[in-house]
């Protein structure tokens, strides 16, 4: 069943939803990355909640004009206008009053959403039928998706992606260093607004599939996920697009494969699954990588200290050190060094003496700063430099009896 869904064999509606969700995921992932890099991820929360009054007003207007109020294009246009109004309010609050951005986000979010709910109840009492579709915008409803709806989502998503590609350079610059961008003469404020405008476009496009509460997840989670895998912004943008698209596709497929699996939440949960995998298993920034790095470091410290102890003929009491030395074939179970161990210990002691000279010599100041008790001296000095230091230390001397 799931396989059928993944290969788009579950009928017309499921296929439409899957394609729409994939496109939405890609454009949300790509757009959300810039928001995340700008450290304004939660702005999307305010924008998405601010769409509700617009949807309701558009519905009322459509009904007043004699339509049945379910024209998706009209509703989306209404939601875009009110989201833009919310965005401007939020911007005004942060720029012209002492409120911090988080308070402005919360204020816009709750007030616009509350007003939207007032309008929803007004619509319910207006007595015109078919308003049931409106609640679908809260959590998305893909059941009755039409070809025209899918086309709107596809075109909207594609246009958003195109716009992102056009202004990605200034957006990246502003995200990383707004002061520098301003110094270069870029209109930082306007670029920010453009970024928010794109987020708004994604939100509006996604209303039908995932709904206004969960679109935030599609904007934030893929970007955060992608950030684990790369340090280069263009790669993060691409990866976020891929992660979002995959989440949309797989989520839509899973939701089509069984009853009572609403599309929006499933897409979000699939996206979260990607996030968890990345959190733990990403190569550099992942938790597993960090743990391994820590263990490797611990091992190096213990072996180094153990070798120094062996070289100076001290007994090793720390069981972990002894175990590591034994496993590396440097010491026997009773703590006596093997031949290799003796050689490595002598080298460790000599290296320590070399470092001492390096650190005492102002000419080596830059190198001395790299000393952490673990670094092999060969990695920071040339062979000639080491030979020079060795001349100052002198070779091994016989014991005078």
């Amino acid at each position: 069943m799931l396989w059928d869904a993944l290969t788009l064999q579950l009928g017309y509606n499921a296929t439409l939803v899957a394609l729409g969700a994939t496109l939405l995921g890609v454009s949300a992932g790509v757009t959300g990355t810039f928001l995340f890099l700008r450290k304004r991820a939660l702005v999307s929360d305010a924008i998405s909640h601010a769409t509700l009054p617009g949807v309701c007003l558009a519905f009322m207007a459509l009904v007043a004009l004699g339509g049945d109020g379910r024209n998706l294009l009209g509703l989306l246009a209404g939601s875009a206008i009110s989201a833009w109004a919310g965005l401007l309010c939020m911007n005004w609050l942060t720029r012209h009053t002492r409120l911090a951005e988080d308070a402005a986000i919360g204020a816009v979010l709750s007030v616009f959403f509350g007003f939207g709910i007032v309008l929803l109840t007004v619509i319910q009492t207006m007595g015109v039928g078919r308003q049931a579709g409106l609640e679908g915008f809260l959590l998305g409803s893909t059941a009755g998706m039409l070809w025209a709806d899918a086309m709107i989502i596809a075109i909207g998503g594609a246009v958003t992606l195109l716009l992102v590609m056009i202004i990605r350079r200034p957006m990246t610059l502003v995200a990383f260093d707004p002061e520098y961008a301003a110094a270069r003469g870029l209109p930082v404020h306007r670029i920010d607004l453009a970024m928010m405008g794109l987020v708004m476009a994604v939100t509006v496009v996604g209303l039908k599939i995932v709904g206004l509460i969960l679109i935030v997840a599609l904007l934030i989670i893929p970007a955060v996920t992608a950030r684990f895998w790369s340090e280069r912004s263009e790669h993060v943008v691409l990866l976020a697009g891929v992660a979002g698209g995959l989440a949309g596709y797989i989520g839509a497929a899973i939701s089509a494969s069984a009853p009572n699996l609403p599309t929006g939440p499933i897409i979000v949960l699939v996206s979260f699954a990607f996030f968890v995998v990345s959190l733990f298993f990403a190569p550099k920034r992942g938790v597993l990588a960090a743990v391994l790095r820590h263990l490797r470091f611990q091992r190096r410290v213990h072996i180094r200290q153990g070798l120094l102890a062996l070289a100076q003929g001290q007994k090793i009491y720390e069981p972990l050190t002894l175990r590591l030395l034994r496993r590396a074939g440097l010491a026997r179970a009773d703590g006596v060094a093997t031949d290799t161990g003796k050689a490595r210990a002598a080298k460790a002691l000599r290296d320590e003496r070399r470092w001492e000279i390096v650190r005492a010599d102002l000419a080596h100041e830059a190198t001395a700063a790299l000393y952490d008790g673990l670094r092999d001296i060969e990695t920071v000095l040339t062979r000639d430099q080491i030979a020079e230091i060795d001349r100052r230390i002198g070779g091994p001397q016989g014991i005078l009896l």
Partner: protein
Amino acid sequence: MSGEEFVPLSLTPLLIGTFAAIACALPGNFLVLRKQALIGDAISHVVLPGIVVAFLVTGTISTWPMMLGAAGAAVVAVVLIEAIRRLGQIEPGAAMGVVFTTMFAAGVLLLEQTDTSTVHLDVEHALYGNLESLIWLDATGWSSLLDIEALAGLPPELPRIALTLVGVTLFTWLFWRPLKISTFDEGFARTIGIRTGVLGMALVITAAIAAVAAFDAVGSIIVIAMFICPPAAARMLTNRLETQIAWSVLFATASAVSGYVLAGYGPLWLGGADAVSAAGMIATMSGLILAAAATFGPCRARIGAHTSA
């Protein structure tokens, strides 16, 4: 309107709305000043999965398991946000966004998967609450306030939210000095021996309790609005924390009362027939108050620019 009509139908919703608004606005003052305003947003989203899980475990819609479930979910969310922030080195806003949307999605999914058709549990209810239905059927007029038998029939939300309000007020009052110092100068607070980490956590937990209790009565949308709008509006009017809190309580009360009245009677005045959502109207009123304060407040500008102190 006469007492026979007002007391049973409007008094309790008004009181519950006002108490909930104040209980949220009090910790909201500190959250806004500490730039943690969106904690309220996150908590009110994660309450949904908590309630659904509590329903799945107990199988009934009873208050205490649900409150516990909601509070548990809030704690889980706070811990998860912190864990993701530290383990993944992600900025707090994004970590919050990841956690609360996922938990909300999980809540919606659980709700769809379980058969809740026999009970009153749905997403809409969680969002806008049901303030209008908290009526006091046993009351006959003002005299019922002294009548023990009638008092026993009060909606249980009223004593609960009143108790929460007392608790929140006590917390603010008892920890006033440390809260104030650590909010404005965390470094200094630490040097004089205030355990800022514990205090910050306590503040978040207090906020969570207020949010859960208010949520039970009035839905999550008021919770977010009351955490942020009254304190933010009060912030525009003064530079003193004491005055700010007084203003925020006044604004919270004003939005609750005016919102409830407008929702109940506004449509009638405009010639409509039915009331609109009180929760939504209260949030809207708090927004209007904030807009007025942001436009005319004497201390609205960021630095130095205010007209007179």
